[in-house]
């Protein structure tokens, strides 16, 4: 019984001593770490430095953010002004509708040839031929005998 009590006291004393101990400071610098840890971390550092970096293209589209923004805004305003100008020019025509003479002037017809049996007109790429059969005149027929 005495032996068991002594053991229990020793364990209690040891526990009290252990609880009074301050924990070891955390290793901030790598040099403070143990050799094995330091070796692994140095390996990681070297692998990190030698890591193959994939090729990448500089974002030239955004190379000049301020200027590009201004240019984009200017282009937008220019396009809007163009649309407005075109709309303003087309508006009177749209409201009045096409005039008949405009159709004539838009597609001028030229007379190419006039004959008794033929009238040839040209309008743009189209060529129009009006043909009529020649009038039959017996007196004008040539004498088959040649006389």
């Amino acid at each position, binding site marked *: 019984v005495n032996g068991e009590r002594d053991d229990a006291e020793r364990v209690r004393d040891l526990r009290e001593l252990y609880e009074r101990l301050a924990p070891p400071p955390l290793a901030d610098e790598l040099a403070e770490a143990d050799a094995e840890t330091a070796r692994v971390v140095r390996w990681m550092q070297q692998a990190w430095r030698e890591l193959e970096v994939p090729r990448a293209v*500089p974002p030239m589209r955004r190379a000049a953010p301020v200027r590009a923004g201004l240019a984009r805004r200017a282009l937008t305003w220019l396009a809007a002004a163009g649309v407005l100008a075109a709309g303003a020019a087309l508006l009177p025509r749209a409201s009045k509708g096409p005039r008949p003479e405009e159709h004539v002037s838009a597609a001028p017809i030229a007379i190419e040839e006039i004959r008794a049996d033929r009238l040839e007109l040209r309008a743009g790429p189209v060529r129009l031929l009006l043909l009529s059969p020649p009038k039959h005149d017996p007196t004008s027929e040539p004498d088959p005998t040649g006389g």
Partner: protein
Amino acid sequence: MSSAPSGAREPEPGLLSAVRAGAPEAVDAWFRAEHPEVYRLCFGFLAHRADAEDVAQEAMVQLLDRLGEWDGVRSYRAWRTTLVLNRCRDRLRRVERRRKHEDSAAGERRERVASDPAAALERAEVEAALLAGLEALPPREREAFVLRDLEGLETSEVARMLAIGESSVRSLVTLARQRLRELLRVRLAPEERP
């Protein structure tokens, strides 16, 4: 003092001014310098190559658009890293559920032209191990580890970026290191180097 200076420095103020003004040559130079770092950050935060590629490109465009908002008082690098971090968190939130049900292999099969197949294979193995390590970390630990140990930022900077206390940063980084040690020490032979 940083535990792993990543070599990244603040860009020249003149360059940033020219980029803000929209000078094409400056934008080009800035992009070439920044994109690899932004990609690495995305790779680290997301632990996924295809997503990192996408988000890096998006982040570059966003950085360019919002460069005018940078006040010039705060470190440019901190401003940039915070923006990239937020972008990656957004992406993680969107894909977290979906990815569990998808075969992500399709996104991984982006073939590259390799001039040296052996070297390409080695690179692929290194990248796979790096990816495995990062994937094994919970997001908060991963963020802290990437910023502190891989990006080489000061603990105080990391704390500001993650909006947590410095002691929390130390805890997260310590846990991440322990987890990585357990995961990778078997995988990495003593003589093996990336």
